[in-house]
């Protein structure tokens, strides 16, 4: 094939040549041309494959996020829906995931609550204990004005009472907060009027672009207005506010513009979207009293008084316990037959050890007699014999008693009609004489003396006269023997009663037998020292 490019030589064949040229081009570059067309198609028509998307997605997100926050805004409804769905399906999953965040957040919140509680308690203590605080309470009681009002009246430095967030364009109230106990039902009207007054002042004085009514004062109230492009934040202050209030106000307003940018731009009368701004506004509310300022000089005072009270109470308790202890010990020491060797007291009770005569009173009884009942008394007592005359006498009287009983249980029996002492009678009399002498000794120790009465009886047989005689003879026989053994006759009393008071026994033979006898009655009588 011949190709002639010289068009000037063959002007009549122009069209034919062009076709040929196209054909030539197709022959030479055909496959490449097709490939280019394919690529171009692909470039224009195709969508990203999943693989490519996966490669690009992270960078794309990072890039867009660095440019503006549209991505976040676009994604947030989806994320909210996904979260809601996830919580609906399995709340446990989300609960577990956010648990590490929730714990510290709750702890922090509790700690802050406690801290503020402590602060308010401190304030209350400080106020109620100070002379001033009491004066104010009296004034409150006298005038009937609530105590907090009195405090504010006297001690108020300043108090931010209300904060209004106002939509700049319409003057409508977006949100409003008030200090506790203050109520403002017409906040919406005030809000609108505030913005109207702004317009009024601006229109009246034409102060220039952006200028505005920043503050105005009425009595002790100051209204401080901060304006942003889309909203105003006005606070009502009672007292003299420092610059910090303005700073807080500006910060709050800036944060509102930042966090509620789209709500402010799209505001169409529905203020519910601004409810979350309440905490920001509440940050502006503040009450500062003179007593809220730290006072180094008197700060220790609020501790001293409760401490002194505690010390006083403990002191009184300690003194009372010590007095009781000393009185108790004195009582124990004064008691005959008790020797306190070691005494100590602790939380568990009283620990006392020492010596105790068996005839002495019980230590508990001694303490009870002194009007003391210790919580617990742990006593360790060793027995001993006291030479204290009272105890000696007491012991002697015990001895006298037992000897007397032994003597009185003895009886000298006789054969019927006889007053002769037989062998058994003699043996009994011998031991009785020994006992009697012991009894005399004991009685002497107990500062007394004994008499032995010999009671002579007979059985009922025979006449009264013979029986009386027989009884007398029997008494005389016993007395004679006792006198011969060395017992003074003056100690012996003869009482021959014969059948007058017989010893009662049911069996008549036995009754007769034991009534043929001499029995004894020993009487102990204390003799005064003067007579000895």
């Amino acid at each position, binding site marked *: 094939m011949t190709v002639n490019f010289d068009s000037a030589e063959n002007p009549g064949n122009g069209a034919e040549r062009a076709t040929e040229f196209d054909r030539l081009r197709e022959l030479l570059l055909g496959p490449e041309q097709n490939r280019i067309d394919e690529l171009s198609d692909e470039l224009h028509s195709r969508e990203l494959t999943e693989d490519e998307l996966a490669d690009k997605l992270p960078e794309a997100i990072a890039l867009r996020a660095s440019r503006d926050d549209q991505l976040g805004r676009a994604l947030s409804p989806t994320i909210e829906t996904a979260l809601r769905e996830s919580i609906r399906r399995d709340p446990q999953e989300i609960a577990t995931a956010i648990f590490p965040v929730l714990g510290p957040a709750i702890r922090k919140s509790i700690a802050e609550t406690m801290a503020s509680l402590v602060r308010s308690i401190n304030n209350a203590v400080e106020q109620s204990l100070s002379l001033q605080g009491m004066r104010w309470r009296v004034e409150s009681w006298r005038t009937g004005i609530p105590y907090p009002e009195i405090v504010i009246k006297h001690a108020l430095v300043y108090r931010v009472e209300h904060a209004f967030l106002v939509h700049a364009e319409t*003057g409508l109230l977006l949100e409003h907060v008030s200090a506790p106990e203050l109520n403002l039902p017409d906040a919406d009207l005030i809000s609108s009027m505030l913005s109207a007054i702004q317009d009024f002042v601006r229109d009246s004085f034409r102060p220039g672009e952006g200028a505005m009514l920043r503050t105005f004062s009425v009595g002790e109230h100051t209204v401080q207005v901060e304006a942003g492009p889309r909203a105003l934040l006005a606070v009502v202050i009672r007292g003299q506010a420092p610059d910090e209030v303005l700073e807080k106000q500006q910060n709050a307003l800036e944060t509102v513009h930042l966090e509620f940018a789209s709500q402010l731009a799209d505001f169409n009368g529905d203020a519910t979207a601004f409810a979350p701004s309440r905490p920001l506004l509440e940050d502006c509310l503040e009450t500062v009293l003179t007593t809220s300022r730290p006072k180094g000089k008197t700060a220790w005072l609020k501790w001293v008084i409760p401490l002194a009270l505690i010390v006083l109470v403990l002191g009184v308790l300690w003194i009372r316990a010590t007095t009781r202890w000393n009185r108790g010990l004195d009582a124990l020491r004064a008691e005959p037959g008790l020797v306190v060797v070691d005494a100590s007291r602790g939380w568990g009770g009283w620990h006392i050890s020492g010596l105790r005569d068996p005839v002495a009173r019980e230590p508990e009884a001694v303490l009870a007699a002194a009007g003391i009942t210790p919580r617990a008394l742990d006593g360790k007592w060793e027995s001993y014999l006291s030479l204290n005359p009272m105890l000696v006498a007491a012991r002697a009287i015990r001895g006298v008693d037992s000897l007397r009983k032994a003597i009185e249980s003895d009886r000298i029996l006789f054969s019927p009609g006889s007053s002769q002492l037989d062998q058994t009678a003699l043996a009994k009399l011998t031991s009785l004489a020994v006992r009697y002498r012991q009894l005399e000794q004991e009685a002497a120790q107990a500062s007394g003396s004994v008499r032995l009465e010999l009671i002579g009886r007979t059985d009922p047989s025979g006449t009264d006269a013979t029986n009386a005689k027989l009884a007398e003879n029997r008494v005389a026989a016993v007395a004679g023997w006792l006198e011969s053994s060395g017992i003074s006759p003056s100690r012996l009393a003869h009482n021959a009663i014969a059948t007058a008071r017989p010893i009662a026994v049911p069996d008549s033979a036995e009754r007769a037998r034991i009534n043929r006898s001499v029995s004894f009655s020993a009487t102990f009588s204390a003799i005064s020292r003067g007579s000895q």
Partner: protein
Amino acid sequence: MIQKKICMVGVYGTGKTCLVQQYVQGIFSVKYLSTVGVKIDRKEVKVGDKEVTLMLWDLEGRDGTRDVNQSYVRGAHGIIYVADGTRPETAKQLHDLRRIVTDEVGEVPSVIALNKFDLKDEWRLSADDEEAAGAPGMHKLKTSAKTGEGVEAAFQWLAEKTVNGAEKSR
């Protein structure tokens, strides 16, 4: 809670303030009108199951020397124009007022209250005058401060229009 800013405008002496006085709650006295040039009241209305609070900006009436303050109209969601049925010129002047208002807020739901309707003997507005007072889309009604005729209806119409209109445009 939904709030809407509603402005009441009209020529001096058309009875704007009297018209709404007993239907609204307010804390500011009439003195504000002549001093600050505006008095704000509140009117609560129910639209469907929604509570709507209309913040009613009663603007000082226009007279020969002083015009309606444009700043006060800014951001209004609805307008109540008031004319005096016994003085036809007050209805004509509404057109000027409307221009001032729409310059500031554009087209918003509006009511024209032809007031003093109780004075039927002195009523000077012809049917043509009445026709000419309005503009397309505006709700026109005859009102009376004395009998209260048409007042609640005006509020209700505006509340519904501002609330539902706003929803539709979203």
